[in-house]
């Protein structure tokens, strides 16, 4: 059967339209989850909204390149991160002179030491405000933040994050390790910085 005949076959066209509708519905059903990640890959809500619209416009145009049965959420985020890179939104700020990261216990030790010692783990977490977390996350340099956002907020596996960002799994692991430490150092500065 030639390409032209197949394309113009009414049954084929109907099936194609049905697949496209399903694809679009599935993609839209994931939009909350995609936005949750997108919002923290860029600096502002406006940027996140632009990026979401560009991502969905492109996804709807190129829906045929999605393989049914594979991870649609990861596929959409792959488009989104590529667009984000293309649009040059990843200009790095000059790194601060002070050390960006500390050990894994740094944040706990800092919070405990400034809450009079006699506190349990729950109380110590409560010393952090929502703003401490949001501000600290926005301070993590892009390369590290992308990985932390995908794995710790988007719930992606190391392998998915590697595929989305087109980097090796080993790089995901090392950036995640450093990214979490940078985030915790920034949270510590934000939460207890004024008390030093």
């Amino acid at each position, binding site marked *: 059967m030639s390409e032209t005949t197949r394309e113009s076959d009414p049954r084929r066209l109907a099936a194609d*339209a049905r697949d*496209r*509708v399903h694809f*679009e519905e599935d993609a*839209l059903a994931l*939009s*909350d989850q995609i*936005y*949750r990640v997108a*919002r*923290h890959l860029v600096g502002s*809500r406006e940027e996140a*909204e632009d990026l*979401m*619209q560009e991502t*969905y*416009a492109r996804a*709807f145009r190129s829906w045929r390149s999605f393989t049914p049965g594979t991870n649609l959420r990861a596929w959409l985020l792959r488009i989104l991160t590529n667009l984000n890179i293309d649009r040059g939104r990843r200009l790095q700020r000059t790194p601060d002179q002070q050390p960006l990261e500390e*050990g*894994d*216990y740094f*944040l*706990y030790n800092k919070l405990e030491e400034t809450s009079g010692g006699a506190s*349990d*783990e*729950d109380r*110590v*977490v409560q010393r*952090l405000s*929502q703003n401490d*977390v*949001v501000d600290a*996350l926005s301070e993590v340099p892009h390369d590290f933040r992308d990985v932390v956002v995908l794995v*710790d*907020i988007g719930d992606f596996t*190391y392998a998915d994050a590697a595929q989305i960002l087109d980097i090796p799994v080993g790089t995901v*692991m090392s950036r*995640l*390790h450093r990214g*979490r430490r940078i*985030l*915790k150092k920034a949270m510590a500065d934000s939460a207890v910085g004024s008390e030093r």
Partner: protein
Amino acid sequence: MSNCEDCEQWMQPYMDRVLTDAERRDAEVHLDECSYCRKRYRFEAHLRQFVRQAVVEPMPVELKQRLASLRTPLQ
């Protein structure tokens, strides 16, 4: 066998469940014995949850509508 410094190194991979069986057993033995690290482990577990919840910003309703309007019109 392990000490608090090792435990600090293992904490995140342990929580991500990517340690080997032997490493995980070592980490658990240490966590059982050491209240200093156990406290910090519980804190880390709470912290992850807290971070996930703290950064959630609901998607604006208008954006949802704009995305839906990008759909291919039905023939």
